């Protein structure tokens, strides 16, 4: 077993001009034990890079998702994970069994059957976004004009935001994730959205509709406060994550056009880009051994999804884009009880987005050299700030 006074690596290994996932992950996977990093706050954390170890971290009951525990990692200066005490209903921050009540209430909304029923409505959202993009001329920013719009409109539909309010909803959610927004603009947009969601809940209490919020109200297992937290969680968890995948995947498909039209590309795009690399933060609440490393109670852990999804032991030639491989065991959506609730929705969104985009705009191409694309290095999620395209 290795000792704790080992050398440390920087926490954020991404950087301009560097490939993603960072090449350092290769060496980190091969060394004994786990890697130690120091967060910008000065706190140390364990970085977990092997596929097998990441799955262990995400299923071990001695490891917690609750940010109220001493030692929970705070990777960036702003935008730490709220606890369910701070935002009631933020169940991704709860452990079993508290977490399970929320998950149980939500899963009927995300079954394969339910998502299949939503396909025509999702297709409609994709079509309308492409209509709007094409109407602008022969160039666009595929991030702003397509990749961000689709998930925002899909979530507003899911939550039962009335059509007249969807432009407002989309505008506010965009502010939250756009790089050029100031902190002040972001705080304001967040407040507007919270207030809007609370108004929507009040409306659905009086006049139920055929939507997720109305059904949750009818089931009566969550408080109004929890409902509003759940709605915010769905919005935040499902917006930029999906948008970044749509945009990065579009680049990958334009570079590998032989895979356009093959739905297997979706799973491989999720694996190869692993945008949620540093999303699943954890803390040990008892001593636990992972990958030959003793982690003491109170020490922070970051399982790196991109590192696990590029583990050579799991995937041969992991950097190669090969949709014919079976990528299904990837951890792009996490693993264990918190594995992404929205994953089947995302799969359909991505499938319909690519199929429709390349069918309707067959001459689509990137307007700048790929090396010049503004990749996101500084945020929690990996992705693209913009994707200039032409057709």
């Amino acid at each position, binding site marked *: 077993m290795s000792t704790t006074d080992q050398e440390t690596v920087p926490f954020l290994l991404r950087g301009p001009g560097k490939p993603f996932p960072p090449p350092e992950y290769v060496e980190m996977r091969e060394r004994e034990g786990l890697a130690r990093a120091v967060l910008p706050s000065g706190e140390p954390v364990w970085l977990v890079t092997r596929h097998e170890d990441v799955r262990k971290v995400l*299923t071990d009951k001695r490891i917690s998702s609750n940010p109220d525990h001493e030692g929970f990692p705070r990777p960036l200066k702003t935008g730490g994970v709220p606890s369910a005490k701070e935002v009631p209903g933020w169940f991704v921050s709860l452990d079993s069994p508290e977490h399970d009540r929320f*998950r*149980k209430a939500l*899963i*009927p909304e*995300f*079954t*394969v*059957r339910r998502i299949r029923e939503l396909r025509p409505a999702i297709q409609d959202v994709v079509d309308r976004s492409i209509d709007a993009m094409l109407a602008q001329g022969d160039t666009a920013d595929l991030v702003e004009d397509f990749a961000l719009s689709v998930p925002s409109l899909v979530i507003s539909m899911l939550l039962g935001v009335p059509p007249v309010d969807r432009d407002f909803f989309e505008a506010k959610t965009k502010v939250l994730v756009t790089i050029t927004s100031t902190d002040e603009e972001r705080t304001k947009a967040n407040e507007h959205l919270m207030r809007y969601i609370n108004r929507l809940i009040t409306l659905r209490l009086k006049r139920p509709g055929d939507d997720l919020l109305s059904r949750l109200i009818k089931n009566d297992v969550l408080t109004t406060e929890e409902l509003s937290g759940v709605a915010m969680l769905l919005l935040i968890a499902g917006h930029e994550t999906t948008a970044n995948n749509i945009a990065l995947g579009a680049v990958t498909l334009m570079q590998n056009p032989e895979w356009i039209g093959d739905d297997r590309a979706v799973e491989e795009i999720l694996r190869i880009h692993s945008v949620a690399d540093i999303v699943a933060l954890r803390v040990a609440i008892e001593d636990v051994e992972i990958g030959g490393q003793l982690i003491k109670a109170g020490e922070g852990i970051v399982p790196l999804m991109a590192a696990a999804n590029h583990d050579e032991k799991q995937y041969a030639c992991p950097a190669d884009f090969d949709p014919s491989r*079976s990528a*299904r*065991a990837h951890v792009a*959506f*996490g*693993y*264990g*009880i918190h*594995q*992404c*609730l929205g*994953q*089947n929705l995302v*799969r359909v969104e991505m499938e319909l987005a690519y199929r429709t985009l390349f069918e309707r705009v067959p001459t689509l191409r990137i307007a700048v050299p790929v090396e010049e694309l503004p990749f996101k290095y500084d945020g929690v999620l990996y992705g693209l700030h913009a994707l200039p395209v032409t057709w």
Partner: protein
Amino acid sequence: MAARIEIEPGQCVGAAQCVLTASELFDQDEDGYVVVLNKEPAGDEQLDHARTAEMICPSQSIVLVED
């Protein structure tokens, strides 16, 4: 060689990885939890599907007993 699918009770988190992998073996009930349609996968393809489902189920609810 016979194989049998068993479900660990009370663990499923409704992620439907099993349904996406093997819709001939698994489904979800009204509440979104796993239902086994066919407990005894037969033939290479079904066995292969059942093994994949066992491996990728995020809550480790699926156990394939092969004897």
